[in-house]
Every structure is written in C-alpha cells, then in structure tokens.
C-alpha cells in the first residue's frame, strides 16, 4: 500500500537520500519500491491446501483483512489529535500492526480466489458494499474513551480468534494468526491499561469511559455472529463469545465500571458488515483511504 505520487522538490532531502542520492558504502540505495520486493508474501508458497475452497478462503481473508485495514485507518486518524505524543505513537504503532496484517490477508485473498488481485487492488479499488469488515471498526473515532473502548473489544476478540486460527489448515492464514496473536496481546494490554486508568481515575474520566463502552457495546455482537463463509472455512465466532465476554467483564469490573446492558445494533434483514451492509461512516473513510490511488491510477514511486 504505497501508491504515492512522485515528488522531488528541494525539501525532500530525506527521500533523496533514501533513493540513493547519497550512496552507501557500496553505492546502494535504501529504497526498495519499484524493485519488486514489496509483495508482503514474497516467495511464500501460495498453493491452496487440499479441501479448502479458494473462493471461501478468499472471502474469509477479506473479512479479517478488511477489519484490520479499516481499524488501522481509524487508529491512524489519531495522529496529531491524541492527548499526548506518546499515545499518538502508540496508536500509530497499533495501526501499523493491523495494516501489516491487512496487507498479508488481502494479498492472500487475491491469490486464493484466483483473480490475482494485489493488496492495492483490493484496498483501493473495491466499493463500499464489497468491504466485508464488521461495523465495529468503521464507526468514527469519537472521543479517546470511545476509541479505547472499541480497541478493547476488538483486540480481545481478535486475539482470541487469532489464537484459534493459528492451527488453520491454510499455512498463510495460520502464520498471520500466529504472528498476530502476539501483536494483539500488546493491543489488548494498551486498551486494558487505559480502561483501568480512565475508569479508576476521576469521576469525570470514569463517566466518559463508561459512556465510551456504552456507545460501542451494541457493535460487539456482530463479532460473534457467524457468516456462512466463516462456518465453512474459519472459526465459528460464536464459540468466542463466552471467553471474550468473560475477559471484557473482568477488565470492566477492575476499572470500577459496568458491563453495558444494551441491545445489539440492528441489521438490515439480517445482513450486516460481513455481507457488505455498512453504516454511513464507511463511505467517507474509504473516500479518504482511496482518493490518491484513484486520482493517479497505477502511479508508482
């Protein structure tokens, strides 16, 4: 995901040095773009394991990859807006992990369905109704408490899912999950620490944190609602409900807050994010994500 327009103004000294304007000891540049090495699954065996339907595996990788891509985009929106520099760096780091997972998953999706679409084709050239992410990841950031509440729910559920997927028959998906489970543990730790800090802070911070949890909670159930594709090639997310809820309840109790008692967000005739039916928030998010790639189709460094 590195479609950028070329810019070579005088001010771009950093880029110029990366591009090799100041040669290293062996006259080599440090810039790999355009060298053919940017494929996140470079040289990885792409054969499908016997018994796995390519279309289903592709759809499943798209679901998980879209979750990661869209939440990464939301997290990155905190850059220049977070309460402290350290939090900005932290949120950007978490977004980077998710973006990395999205790149691998979308690349795998394009291989598995036989279309040969790249990560960039899938990220930049699909329409809103083709995105299969849960609605939890697409809603606007809200305040810091809402973003932390969302991160707590997502990282707890995704960590549990990756743990189960590390044994998946598809070696690529299994490897992404095995790597991801450790990354998500850091995300969970971060979100839990802030939930405790705000919940156990002043009465005002506790009120805001509780409001964040209340606002995000209706989107939780969708994470546990199985789409037929998930039942065919993935892990039944309903199995994660009990352990994930138990863990969330423990964090919330320790923070002196209350587990929200609110009904799940309605679906459209039973269809939701996994079916491409989204909230009104996804369109503007994708417009920003895709605008450069669409303004300059095929542009490279």
């Amino acid at each position: 995901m590195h479609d950028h327009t070329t810019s070579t103004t005088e001010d771009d000294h950093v880029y110029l040095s990366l591009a090799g304007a100041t040669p290293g000891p062996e006259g080599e540049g440090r810039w790999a773009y355009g060298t053919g090495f940017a494929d996140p699954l470079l040289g990885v065996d792409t054969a499908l394991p016997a018994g796995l339907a390519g279309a289903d595996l592709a759809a499943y990788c798209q679901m998980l990859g879209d979750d990661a891509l869209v939440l990464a985009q939301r997290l990155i929106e905190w850059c220049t807006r977070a309460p402290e520099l350290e939090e900005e760096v932290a949120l950007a780091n978490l977004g980077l992990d998710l973006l990395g997972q999205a790149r691998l998953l979308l690349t795998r999706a394009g291989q598995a369905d036989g279309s040969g679409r790249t990560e960039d084709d899938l990220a930049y050239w699909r329409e809103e109704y083709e995105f299969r992410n849960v609605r939890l990841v697409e809603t606007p950031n809200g305040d810091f408490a809402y973003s932390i509440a969302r991160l707590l729910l997502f990282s707890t559920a995704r960590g549990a899912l990756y743990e189960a997927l590390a044994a998946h028959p598809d070696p690529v998906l299994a490897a992404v999950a095995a790597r991801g489970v450790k990354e998500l543990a850091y995300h969970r730790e971060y979100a839990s620490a802030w939930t405790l800090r705000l919940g156990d802070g002043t009465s005002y911070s506790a009120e805001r944190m509780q409001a964040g949890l209340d606002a995000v909670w209706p989107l939780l159930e969708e994470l546990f609602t199985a789409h037929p594709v998930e039942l065919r090639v993935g892990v039944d997310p309903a199995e994660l409900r009990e352990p994930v809820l138990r863990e969330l309840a423990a964090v919330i109790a320790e923070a002196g807050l209350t587990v929200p008692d609110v009904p799940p967000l309605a679906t459209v005739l039973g269809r939701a994010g996994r079916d491409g039916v989204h909230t009104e928030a996804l369109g503007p998010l994708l417009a920003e994500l895709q605008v450069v790639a669409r303004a300059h189709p095929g542009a490279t460094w």
Partner: protein
Amino acid sequence: MTGTTGTVGSVGTVRDLAWSVAAAVPDPELPMLTLADLGVLAEVEVDGASGTVTAWLTPTYSGCPAVAEMAADVDRRLRAAGYPDVRVRLRLDPPWSTDLITAEGRRKLAEAGIAPPRPTSAVASAPGPVPLALGPTRTGAATPVPCPHCGGNDTEELSRFGSTACKALWRCRACREPFERVKEI
C-alpha cells in the same frame, strides 16, 4: 566466489559463503545489527547444479515497513558478491521472536544504547488474560531491564511504543537518561 582454497566443490562451504554475504546485510532500522544478528535471516541455500542462491527472511512484525528494503538489500549484496541468480523469499512460519536475536546482536544493541529484550520465557505474555493492574511500571528484581548507559536496574517504562514497532521507551532512575528497549515478542 574466489579464494575458497581447499574447499572448492564442497556444497556446505559454498552455502556458508553465501550465508556470510547475506548475513552481513545491516538492518535498515537498527543498522548496528546485521540481519543475522537480528534473527531475520532464516536460511540460505545454494543449488549445487545451477548455482542459484535462495535466501529466506522471516519478517519481524506484520507491519514492519523495512521488509522490502531488507529483501532488496540481500538481493543486491548477493549479486554484488558474484551470484548471478538470486531469489529472496519470505518465511512466515515459525514467526520471528526476539529470542532469535543472537548474543552478538544483544551485545551490539546494548553498546548502541538500546536495551536488548529479555527471553520471552521470562516475561508473562499472551496467550491468556492480560494482567489487570496498572501497578508500577518499574521492573521487578526477577527480570530487570538494566540501563544500557549506567547498568543500573532502577529503570521504568515511559511508553510501551516507540520510534519503531519493535521498541519501547524507557528511562533510568539512577542516571536519569532515557533509552530505547527492544520489547519481547
């Protein structure tokens, strides 16, 4: 490819030579370390008949932005060393861990003022629930993070996330200096 006196034709030695070329490539973000020090260079193979060199790299974090640079560097260095046909591939399984950083790598990190990671076995981490206490961020006596500047053990974490995905920001309460630390994964 010259100067392999006495061992010409030995596939093991040919492989070792190619390994040493790839192993010397510096990490783009921690240039004091080579890819071998970092444990990113997983394997190098030389096909005895065709002379094709294949190097496998295991990326650190999923989102590590340096992977493409690493692959391009390994390819460039091997070609510069005279191997005409080079393939660089990624190996995702088993995942990279900070336990793969060599003793030499840990020494170089500390020398550069970056605290090396502890063994992951010494650090409680996933799977399982996260510790539910904010607690002090200073390290316990069991698994201290010594200050890379003064060697003192009275150090504390400022932020779990730092300038790159693999590092956290710490400070020493004895010498008052901040330092970076490669965090366990």
